[in-house]
């Protein structure tokens, strides 16, 4: 394998340095590296030089919440198209949610997804196993078998559905302690959200759309942090979306409860006011909330109450969004715009620096999901999982250029900052000058 010299990159947004990649590993990080010197040091290898020219170098991003749709809904996304989208967005690992057809509730299905990710080679794919058989919330899936499979599953989630039965949730939290697993909860009290179509509040009252009250999320989070405390387990909260949820997680952390939480890019930027257009591109679960919630989420991500950003990348075919609100599917694609939204909402607002972005989008998600070799420091001897970002760029979001098979983005035509130009997965370039390899 040849060498790569990245010249003049602001590592985690710091002073420009040169980074030499040798094979799958970072060989050296310092100012003043030359191609010639790099070549001599390693013998007779060619050195590919990438002029970073002030771009920001981050550890490869890790998404703890991606829907790759394969097996079953290959019309909206496949492992190949989803991991290409991930590489385009600067990701080197994605955790694939279990709500496929068939559901990823057996060792066979998780191994299939894991193996497809390895074969395609754009991004590591770490399957998430279902907590209950068929996501129906009644019977635990074979969590141990999924953990012991080649896929080595450590994160379990019924995402899309809430593990609403308190006893099942308690047992799951306890059971995965045997192998250091974590339950990622989709917090949605089902009875309080029957017929729910959007955030319950001023806008839903006017539009006559079924309300999804904040309390339906908050009551489950409150219950689950108490359960995790009681049985001494670790719980992860998926796509936290309300100011009240932030307060509960903040309280739980202050008590030493092992809870981690994620926020999606869209909940950091968009509000339920957009639903006034009845355009289903804004239909998502949990729903877009209010300005007050958005501000609380940003603040919580900055102060660490919310640990990570996860995309909840949810591809859907065109026809499932080109219809009336009630008939539309819930979800938005997010892998290819996540970093731009985080720059817009967190970096350009002064809430987070680039080291903070690396922490929330790579280091912490890798740690929660136990993705070894990812979310590591950008320093000599570490795996060369890297992302180079042109932070000075501003441009309109053009879904036609997406690598994802689906186009259901809420940002079409919106101007956003930042563009990922290069992604390296263990030293292999998956994205070069904004183009997939």
């Amino acid at each position, binding site marked *: 394998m040849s060498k790569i010299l990245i010249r003049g990159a602001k590592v985690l947004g710091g002073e420009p340095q040169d980074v030499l990649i040798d094979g799958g590993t970072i060989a050296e990080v310092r100012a003043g590296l030359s191609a010639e010197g790099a070549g001599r040091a390693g013998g007779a290898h060619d050195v590919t030089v990438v002029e970073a020219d002030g771009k920001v170098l981050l550890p490869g991003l890790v998404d703890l919440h991606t829907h790759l749709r394969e097996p079953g809904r290959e019309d909206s996304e496949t492992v190949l198209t989803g991991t290409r989208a991930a590489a385009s967005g600067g990701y080197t690992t994605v955790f694939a949610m279990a709500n496929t057809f068939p559901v990823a509730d057996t060792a066979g299905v998780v191994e299939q997804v894991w193996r497809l990710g390895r074969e395609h080679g754009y991004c590591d794919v770490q399957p998430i196993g279902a907590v209950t058989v068929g996501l129906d919330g009644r019977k635990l899936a074979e969590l141990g078998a999924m953990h012991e499979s080649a896929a080595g599953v450590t994160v379990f989630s019924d995402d899309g559905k809430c593990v609403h039965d308190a006893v099942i949730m308690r047992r799951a939290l306890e059971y995965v302690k045997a192998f250091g697993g974590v339950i990622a909860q989709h917090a949605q009290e089902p009875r309080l959200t029957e017929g729910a179509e959007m955030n319950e509040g001023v806008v*839903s*009252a*006017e*539009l*006559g759309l079924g*309300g999804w009250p904040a309390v339906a999320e908050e009551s489950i989070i409150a219950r689950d942090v108490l359960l995790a405390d009681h049985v001494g387990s670790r719980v992860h909260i998926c796509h936290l979306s309300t100011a009240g949820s932030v307060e509960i997680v903040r309280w739980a952390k202050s008590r030493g409860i092992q809870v981690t939480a994620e926020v999606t890019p869209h909940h950091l930027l968009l509000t339920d006011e957009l639903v006034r257009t009845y355009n289903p591109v804004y239909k998502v679960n949990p729903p877009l909330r209010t300005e007050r919630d958005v501000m609380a989420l940003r603040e919580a991500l900055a102060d660490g109450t919310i640990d990570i950003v996860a995309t909840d990348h949810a591809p859907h075919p065109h026809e499932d969004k080109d219809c*009336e609100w009630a008939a539309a599917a819930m979800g938005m694609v997010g892998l290819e715009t996540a970093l731009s939204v985080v720059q817009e909402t967190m970096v350009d607002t002064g809430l987070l620096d680039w080291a903070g972005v690396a922490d929330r989008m790579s280091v912490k998600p890798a740690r929660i999901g136990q993705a070894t070799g990812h979310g590591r420091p950008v320093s000599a001897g570490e795996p060369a999982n890297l992302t180079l970002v042109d932070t000075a760029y501003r441009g309109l979001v053009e879904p036609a250029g997406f690598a994802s098979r689906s186009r259901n983005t809420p940002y079409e035509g919106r101007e956003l900052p930042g563009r990922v130009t290069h992604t390296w997965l263990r030293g292999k370039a998956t994205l070069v000058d904004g183009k997939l390899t």
Partner: protein
Amino acid sequence: MQRHLISAADLTRDDAVLILDTAEEMARVADRPIKKLPTLRGRTIVNLFFEDSTRTRISFEAAEKRLSADVINFSAKGSSVSKGESLKDTAQTLEAMGVDAVVIRHGASGAPYRLANSGWIDAAVVNAGDGTHQHPTQALLDAFTMRRRLIGPDAGLGQDLEGKRITLVGDVLHSRVARSNVDLLHTLGAEVTLVAPPTLLPVGVETWPCEVSYDLDSTLPKSDAVMMLRVQRERMNAAFFPTEREYSRRYGLDGDRMARMPEHAIVMHPGPMVRGMEITAEVADSDRCTVVEQVANGVSVRMAVLYLLLGGNEPAVTHPRTEEK
């Protein structure tokens, strides 16, 4: 006037008064031996009904026919919609047949808005009721009825409902009629009070341009019109209220309660009424109750809306109104 009628909130005061005034002219047509105007001759209107509704569809159909439009009725039952055809494909199919306006009733809130704003079709869209969102022609016919009764058919011309106290009672949460009425009556200067058990009021109602009360008895003496909304018995199964009888006792309108209303005050109902639930037969059949009048006025108001959306600039009635006096 806008090109579509999607929400009562889209109407300005002047738009609304123009519609009501035009409806008065249309009402005079109904008094003629031949109840027909040539205004929309050669124009095609489709009544696209995805939800069962006999009275609204018939009302629109009568309005369209009195304006000499060609009318196509499309009911979703037994159609390609039940075979999975999308709203978009249905609408485009109809437009390909040369439809000038689509009158749509749909169970999903926002479906008419999508139809008008998605670029699927070019025809004018009239909302005939969408989910729990809006029913603007109902609000217009209600306002028309109030103006006629509280001010007078001739005295009301050019007038709004400034200072009139209107009370709406019942299932506001699930009611598109309530939403449309609050919007339009506010625009017309009326003072609106909603009365309902707290379970049947939406979270967020506190931002609406109206008062909210849980107590019917204290509101009745301060009302110029009381509109009873239909309450479906099934709501009781979802714990919105304990029993039908308790609902009736607390929020139903009977003869005793009607007696507490001012002399001139009227009782309204958008229909269909659930007698014995929100309204007793004694009230429903009294001459203070305008429910039958509302139906007749519905045709006039819908004629006015279609005329103003499609008819353009010519006078609706071929001779000046003064000649009829």
